[in-house]
């Protein structure tokens, strides 16, 4: 059965949420990675950092608490959890670059078996820019890529990225609707096959070679 986009994203977001430990300081990319906070396991509370200068991002605003001066990095109005704070761009990036973020979850255009990530530029076609992604990935203790396994059927997990890199040799884990991979010094290791997929399915939709070591 073909999954809808919403179902695909939910599967990925739910799996990402399992990677957080109580008290983790976490930065989440715009879109799919941000959805992971909806599925936090019981007893796991995390501190979400947003690059525009909010530490302790809470729920989205509603009609009772609108405040256009508090947004997340996607420009969406958010609340700030008790104990949170607002900082300027220098402090925000000091947190990232300086190694104070436990887990970072980002999307990708391409990711490869060497742990390289490309997510800011398709030369000649679409160049949104890196925003804070390059600073973020350099300093984070763990970097998880959460993305749909393919783009219009084409593999996104490659032997070697062909697009301009966001960072070299830094990705620790890839979570898609089909699979969970760890990236070891020797390459990709398939750790989980998601319920709607199979080893065959993963092999045919993954460009990179991988070792199978299911947990």
């Amino acid at each position, binding site marked *: 059965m073909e999954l809808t986009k919403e179902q695909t994203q939910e599967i990925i977001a739910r799996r990402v949420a399992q990677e957080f430990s109580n008290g983790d300081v976490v930065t989440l990319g715009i879109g799919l990675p941000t959805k992971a906070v909806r599925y936090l396991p019981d007893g796991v509370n995390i501190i979400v950092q947003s690059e*525009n200068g909010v530490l302790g991002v809470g729920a989205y605003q509603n009609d009772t608490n609108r405040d*256009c001066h508090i947004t997340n990095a996607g420009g969406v109005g958010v609340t700030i959890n008790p104990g949170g704070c607002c900082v300027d761009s220098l402090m925000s990036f000091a947190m990232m670059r300086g190694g104070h973020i436990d887990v970072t979850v980002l999307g990708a255009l391409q990711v490869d078996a060497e742990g390289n990530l490309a997510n*800011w530029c398709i030369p000649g076609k*679409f160049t949104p820019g890196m925003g804070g992604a390059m*600073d973020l990935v350099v300093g984070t203790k763990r970097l998880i890529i959460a993305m749909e396994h393919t783009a219009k059927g084409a593999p996104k997990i490659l032997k070697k990225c062909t697009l301009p890199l966001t960072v070299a040799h830094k990705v620790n884990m890839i979570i898609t609707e089909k699979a969970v991979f760890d990236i070891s010094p020797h390459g990709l290791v398939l750790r989980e096959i998601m319920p709607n997929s199979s080893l065959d399915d993963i092999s045919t939709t993954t460009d990179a070679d991988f070792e199978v070591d299911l947990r």
Partner: protein
Amino acid sequence: MVKMITPAEAVQFFKSNQTIMVGGFLNCGVPNLVINELIKTPLTGFTLISNDTGEAGINRGQLIHAGKIKKAIVSHIGTNPETVQLYNEDKIEIDLQPQGSLAERIRADGAGLGGILTPVGIGTDIEKGKQKISVCNKEYLIETPLHADIAVVYATYADRFGNLAFHGSTRNFNVLMPMAADIVIVEAEHILDEPLSPDEVVVPGIFTDYLIDGGAYGID
């Protein structure tokens, strides 16, 4: 006491082809009053240093829409399809910089530093044209300071001494840019007659050259 001016008076300080810094992150904490006036002038050819170029046709996006910007040094343009299109058509020069490096380069200028050493961008296209240096066996890029002729920033509160304070996530680049420009114009939502408490001041008033009373023009 810092001189109070109107947005129309503020644009008198601008000249074509200057380098300008404009605070804000997407639509949060953007000094719109000066932008609204600047787009009415015949001035053009600016180099814009800002986090992003906002959204098409609004806030900082107006500067792009009105053709005022020759070159933009920013971290992200994806939220403004007009910027992306101009870039694809080679009608605007875009110098994309990692956001944290952009912030530190502005600070470096304001803090009298010759630049910064950062691991960000090592192994990527960002390295191109930049000097590398090894410190304690780790490689860094040398990122040079960024200076502007004029910085226009937003503040939530300003007192008559030019001291600034902020609400929510409006601090972003508004806190750094006043250190790194020859002329600093601040649009404050609330001008306070009593001085801010020394404990509340985020940007010291000595950086502020001119203040605009945003409240008088209905910014919220």
